[in-house]
């Protein structure tokens, strides 16, 4: 072993500080980090809630989650049968930030693929599997047990718009989610359709999305636009449909009657009437209803419930019922028609009518019109379809004697009737037939026959008297022609024969002429050479040359 005393010594640079070692920061940090992680994990696990469903179709524990607006806000940790074996209970662990949705009026439902007439929804769940949808309630009371809906709620709370109550006599083909149209634009849907408690009407609730809910005013009318609106009435055939979807799925349309008077915002909780079709919805507001009674003794074919009561083109009322009766005295059937008359449809004239019987019911005022000759008559509105209407018209001049002869019947306006328009038409046709009957076709026929006979006689006379004379004349004419031919032939013989006297004399004459012409030529030549001879005469010896 070497001598240790010769070894060098290490150099002391610095005294060690007696402070706690900085190394203890490491575990402190680690503990802090672990604590933070633990706290964060604890905080991120929100409350656990239980939701009861009818069945757990497509709902798997660990796979399904809870989504609000398609944002996962929790997960299904287990799906168990309820104690009563009728339901399933899904245990859901909400994430921390979503604990606010565990309030009393939150709604939960299982989102699955659904196919309806209104469209397809939840298609994405075909791939991702069902999930639980949630609509956060507004309550502040916390809850941890919920009863899930079987269908998604038709309106979630985050959708802006307004709900309106409608009453209808009949739901038609309307159902929840049936669309609501404004000028054929889908602006909402039916959210509830329930029978009223008395079972006589249907209460519908519709949701109209903002901003179109502002178009629903106190003047708005709703009507059922389901299917094809085929109307066959006195105005002919009309077909109306909102859209192909409404033909299948039904729908509601709304509008205001008068676009120039859109009306004001409706009262809260106002209930609207759902008219069965657009025509009835758009009809002028009915106002006061006055019952009217009419008794027809003639054919009322074409008159039924809904037949209009027409005053100069204005639909003043509508037939409510037709009741046949038998009149023992006249041994004839009659028909009692009850109708609703809406005198306010007369517009400004309504005040004039009421002025007729001031201070009395409107029916009394209307009754005075009857005394002035306003009667009812069935008239044919459409010859093709046979639809008829009840026309109110003036039929007799105001006979003061009859004034007030007919009184109102228990407040109902009693309107006397005139023979129907169809009867009038029938009579006119009958008259035409009668006139045709009066035409003396027999006499005309006899005349024609006489004319034919005399014509026959004339022809016979001609045949008998004129024809033989004519034949004689023809024979004579033939003789004359033959004689003429002989004359012509003899002339030809006399003239054309070479040794005939005419021929010889003619030839002699021509020779004579020839000579005369020669002489003339000689004279002309001489005169040409001796023009003076015309004055002095011919010089001697100066013979004109010639042959």
């Amino acid at each position: 072993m070497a001598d240790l005393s010769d070894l060098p010594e290490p150099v002391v640079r610095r005294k060690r500080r007696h402070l706690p070692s900085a190394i203890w920061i490491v575990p402190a940090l680690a503990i802090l980090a672990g604590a933070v992680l633990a706290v964060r994990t604890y905080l991120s696990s929100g409350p656990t809630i239980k939701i009861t469903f009818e069945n757990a179709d497509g709902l798997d524990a660990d796979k399904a989650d809870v989504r609000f607006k398609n944002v996962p806000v929790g997960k299904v940790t287990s799906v168990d049968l309820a104690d009563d074996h009728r339901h399933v209970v899904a245990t859901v662990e909400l994430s921390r930030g979503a604990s606010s949705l565990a309030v009393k009026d939150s709604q939960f439902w299982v989102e699955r693929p659904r196919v309806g007439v209104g469209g397809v929804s939840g298609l994405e769940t075909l791939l991702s599997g069902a999930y639980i949808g949630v609509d956060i309630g507004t309550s502040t009371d916390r809850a941890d047990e919920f009863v899930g809906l079987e269908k998604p709620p038709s309106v979630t709370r985050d959708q802006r718009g307004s709900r309106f109550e409608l009453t209808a006599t009949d739901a038609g083909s309307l159902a929840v989610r049936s669309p609501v149209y404004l000028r054929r634009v889908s602006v909402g849907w039916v959210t509830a359709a329930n029978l009223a408690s008395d079972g006589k009407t249907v209460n519908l609730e519709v949701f109209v999305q903002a901003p179109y809910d502002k178009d629903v005013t106190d003047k708005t009318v709703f009507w059922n636009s389901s299917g094809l609106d085929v109307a066959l009435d006195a105005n002919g055939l009309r077909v109306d449909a909102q859209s192909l979807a409404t033909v299948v799925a039904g729908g509601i349309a709304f509008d205001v009657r008068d676009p120039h008077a859109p009306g004001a915002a409706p009262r809260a909780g106002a209930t609207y009437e759902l008219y069965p079709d657009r025509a009835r919805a758009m009809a002028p507001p009915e106002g006061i209803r006055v019952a009217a009674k009419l008794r027809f003794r003639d054919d009322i074919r074409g008159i039924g419930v809904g037949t209009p009561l027409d005053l100069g083109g204005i639909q003043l009322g509508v037939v409510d019922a037709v009741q046949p009766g038998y009149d023992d005295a006249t041994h004839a059937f009659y028909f009692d028609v009850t109708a609703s008359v809406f005198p306010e449809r007369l517009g400004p004239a309504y005040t004039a009518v009421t002025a007729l019987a001031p201070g009395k019911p409107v029916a009394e005022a209307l009754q005075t019109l009857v005394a002035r000759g306003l009667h009812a008559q069935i008239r044919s509105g459409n010859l093709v379809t046979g639809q008829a209407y009840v026309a109110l018209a003036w039929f007799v001049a105001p006979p003061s004697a009859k004034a007030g002869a007919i009184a109102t019947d228990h407040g109902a306006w009693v309107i006397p009737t005139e023979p129907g328009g169809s009867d009038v038409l029938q009579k006119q046709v009958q008259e035409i037939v009668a006139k045709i009957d009066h035409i003396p076709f027999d006499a005309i026929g006899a005349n024609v026959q006489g004319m034919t006979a005399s014509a026959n006689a004339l022809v016979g006379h001609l045949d008998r008297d004129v024809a033989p004379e004519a034949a004689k004349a023809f024979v004579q004419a033939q003789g004359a022609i033959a004689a003429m031919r002989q004359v012509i032939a003899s002339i030809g013989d006399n003239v054309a024969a070479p040794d005939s006297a005419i021929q010889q004399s003619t030839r002699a004459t021509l020779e004579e002429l020839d000579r005369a012409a020669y002489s003339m030529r000689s004279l002309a030549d001489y005169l040409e050479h001796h023009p003076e001879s015309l004055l002095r005469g011919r010089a001697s010896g100066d013979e004109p040359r010639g042959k």
Partner: protein
Amino acid sequence: MTAHARALRARDLGLVACEACELVMTDPHRDTDDRLHCPRCGEPVHRRKVNTTARAWAFLIAALALYFPANVLVMMKTVQFPLRRADTIWSGVVFLWERGTWDLALIVLVASIVVPLVKLVALATLLVTTRRKSRFRPRARTRLYRVLETIGHWSMLDVFVVSLLTAVVQLGRFASVAPGPAVLPFAGVVVLTMLASASFDPRTIWDFDGQEPARG
């Protein structure tokens, strides 16, 4: 090591060696905590690893603090259509076991749960016995320390698996892997146990008053 009448440490002879240039020096400041430097090369001269006990304990406690979140929290989130899973280490082992891949389950179990735990316990044991200047089987404890140093980094397996899968399996909606919040504490446990074992000075196992240890 065969038995000797006396087992002297360098310290017992008042000597200290430079770890850089191996210069042997006398150590007159043996009882002080002064910082020594080599007169030849200037490097610090340590009789033992600096502050070994405190450092080892500190790292050990830090590792222990992170061990719990590492095992309780979600390690790996997987989407394997239509299933979505969020596995802790233990649920992953159970899942693999139930799938029938018990070999993989054992590997994950050993590498991710047993090894870190064994390291923590073993280091704690070493530190406690050393502090109490235990004479119990110092050779076995020294070997244990060597084993700890060797297997230490293999327990990063889980972190590697998650990192690899996260990078590779990204098929959107149909299959994807994302790391969970347990990954960081788990990596922390592994790193801190490695640091703890590195801070531990095996020489302290033999610092029991210079007495001949029991055979081990």
